[in-house]
C-alpha cells in the first residue's frame, strides 16, 4: 500500500513531466512516420546526435562536483567528453551525409 501511495505521489509531483513524455512519444512517431527510406540513415544519425542532449546532465554533474571529490570530477569529465563526442560527431556526420544529397543537374 505504501509503495502504491509512493508511486502515486511521485506521478502527481512530476505530472507535467509525464505529460511531456506522452506528448513526445506521439510527436516522435508522427514526425518520423512520413520519412522516405532514402533518408533513413541520415535520420538515424540526426536522431543519434539529438539524444546527445544527455551532455547537459554531464555538464551539471561536472559543474556541481566538489573540488575534493576526485571520483565525481574524473567521471564527470569523462562524461562531458563522451557526451560531446556524441553531439558533435553526430551532427557533423549527419551534415556530411546530407551534403551529398544536393541535387546535381
Amino acid at each position, binding site marked *: 500500500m505504501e509503495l502504491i501511495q509512493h508511486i502515486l505521489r511521485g506521478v502527481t509531483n512530476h505530472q507535467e513531466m509525464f505529460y511531456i513524455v506522452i506528448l513526445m512519444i506521439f510527436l516522435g512517431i508522427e514526425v518520423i512516420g512520413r520519412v*522516405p527510406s532514402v533518408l533513413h540513415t541520415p535520420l538515424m544519425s540526426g536522431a543519434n546526435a539529438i539524444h546527445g542532449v544527455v551532455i547537459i546532465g554531464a*555538464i551539471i554533474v561536472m559543474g556541481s562536483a566538489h573540488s575534493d571529490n576526485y571520483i565525481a570530477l574524473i567521471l564527470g569529465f*569523462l*562524461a562531458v567528453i563522451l*557526451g560531446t563526442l556524441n553531439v558533435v560527431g553526430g551532427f557533423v556526420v549527419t551534415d556530411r551525409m546530407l551534403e551529398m544529397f544536393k541535387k546535381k543537374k
Partner: protein
Amino acid sequence: MEHILTICYLIGSITFILGLKMLSNPATARKGNLIAAAGMTIAIFGTIFLYRDEAGNLLHNYAWIFGGLLIGGIVGTLAAKKVKMTAMPEMVSLFNGMGGACAALISFVEFGHIAKHVQEGLPVNTSSLLTIFLGLIIGSVSFAGSMIAWGKLNGKVKDFSFTGQHIFNLALFAIILGLAGFLLFNITVANIYLFYVISFLALLYGVFFVLPIGGADMPVVISLLNSFTGVAAACGGFLYGNKVMLTGGILVGAAGTLLTILMCKAMNRSIQNVLIGSFGAKSTGAAGGASPQGNYKEISLSDAATVMAYANKVMIVPGYGLAVAQAQHTCHELEKYLEEKGVEVKYAIHPVAGRMPGHMNVLLAEADVSYDKLLEMEEANDEFKTTDVVLILGANDVVNPAAKNDPASPIYGMPILEVEQAKTVIVNKRSMKPGYAGIENDLFFQPKTSMLFGDAKVALQKLLTEIKSID
C-alpha cells in the same frame, strides 16, 4: 536569469522537434540538422552559464567543462570528417555508444551522492534512485551493445551464440531487474556495492544481447540501441527536472522505436524475432538443409559489355558489395556512359540493401547519382518487366527469390526486388559464397542469370573499358 535558461531550453526543444521534422524531407534535411545543432548549442551554453542547483549556486569547474567540450569536440569532428562513407553505420553506432556511456556515468556520479546520504543515515529519495538505476541500466546496455555492433560491422567481432543463450539472457535481465528492485527499497551501507554489480551485469547483458544477432539485423539493432540511448537521456531529464533532456530523449526514443519497427517490416520480421537472435540459428539450419543446386554460368566481360551496350533499359541493383569495393563513382561513370549511348539506366534500391536502411542512397549520392534515377522497391518491381539487363552489384539476400517461394527459408516473406522478371540478369559478386543471411540464392542458378566474378570496382572499370571499345 533562470528565466533565460528556461527560454534556452524551450528553444532547444523546439529545434529538436523542428529538426527531426525537417530531416524527414530531402529538401530541408540539411537545414533541419543545422537547426537542431544550433538549438543544442544554445541549450549547452545556457546550462554552463545559467544553470543553478537547488541551493541556487551557479556551476563551477569551468576549466574541466570546457576541457571536456574541447577534447570531445575536436575528436568528434575529426572522426566524423575522416570516416569513409562505407563506414558510416559503424560511426553512428560508436557515437551512440558514447551517449549511452555518458548517461551511465551520470548515474554513477549521482549514485555516489546517494551512497553518501545512506552512509550518513539520511533518507533516500526513491524516485531519484529509480531514475538513476534506469539511466545506468539502459545507458550501460546501450554502450556495450553499440560497441559490439560497431565491432561486428567492421568485422572485428564475429557472431557468437551458445545453446540456451536466450534463457541465459532472460535470466541475466531478470537478475538485473531483481537486484535493482531490491536495492531501490532496501538500500543500506552493507549493500551499496550491489550498484556496481548491477552496472557490471548491465554491461554484460548489452554484450550478450547483441552478440548472437546476425549481421543482417545490425541496422535494426543500432536503431533500437539509438532509441535506448534516447530513453537513457530522458532518465537524466527526470533526475534533474530538465525538460530539454526529457524532450530530446523521449523524442528520439519514440522515433527510434518507430524506425526500428519500420526496418523490421521491410524485412518482414518481428522485433521479437530479431531480438531473440534466431536469425543466425535458423539460417544455418536452412543452409545446411538446402542443397546447393549445381550449375551456374559465368559471363565474359566482353559478352556482358555487349549485352549492356545494346540494351534499351538497364537496371542496376546495388548492394553491400558496391559499398565494400567503393565502386559508386565507377558505377556512376558506367551509368553516364551508357546513357550517352542512349541506354536508359536506373537504380533499384531495396530499403535494407547494404548495412543500414538508406545506405545505398547515401553511397550513390556521394557519387552524384541523380535522385530521380533511384527507384524505390515498388517502382522498381513494376519496371523489371520492361528491363533488358539487370546488373546486380554485390547484392544477395534482397534479390533472393526464396523470400517469395520457399516458406522454409529464414527470409521467407521479406519483400524483395523481383529481378527475375527482367530478360537478363548479370550478377557481380566476389565469389559464390552466400550473403549475410547465410543462405543459398536460387537466382544465381537460373538460366537467365550469369555470374561476373570479381571486386565490384575492378569489374565495373573493366566493363566500362569494354563498352567503350565496342564503338
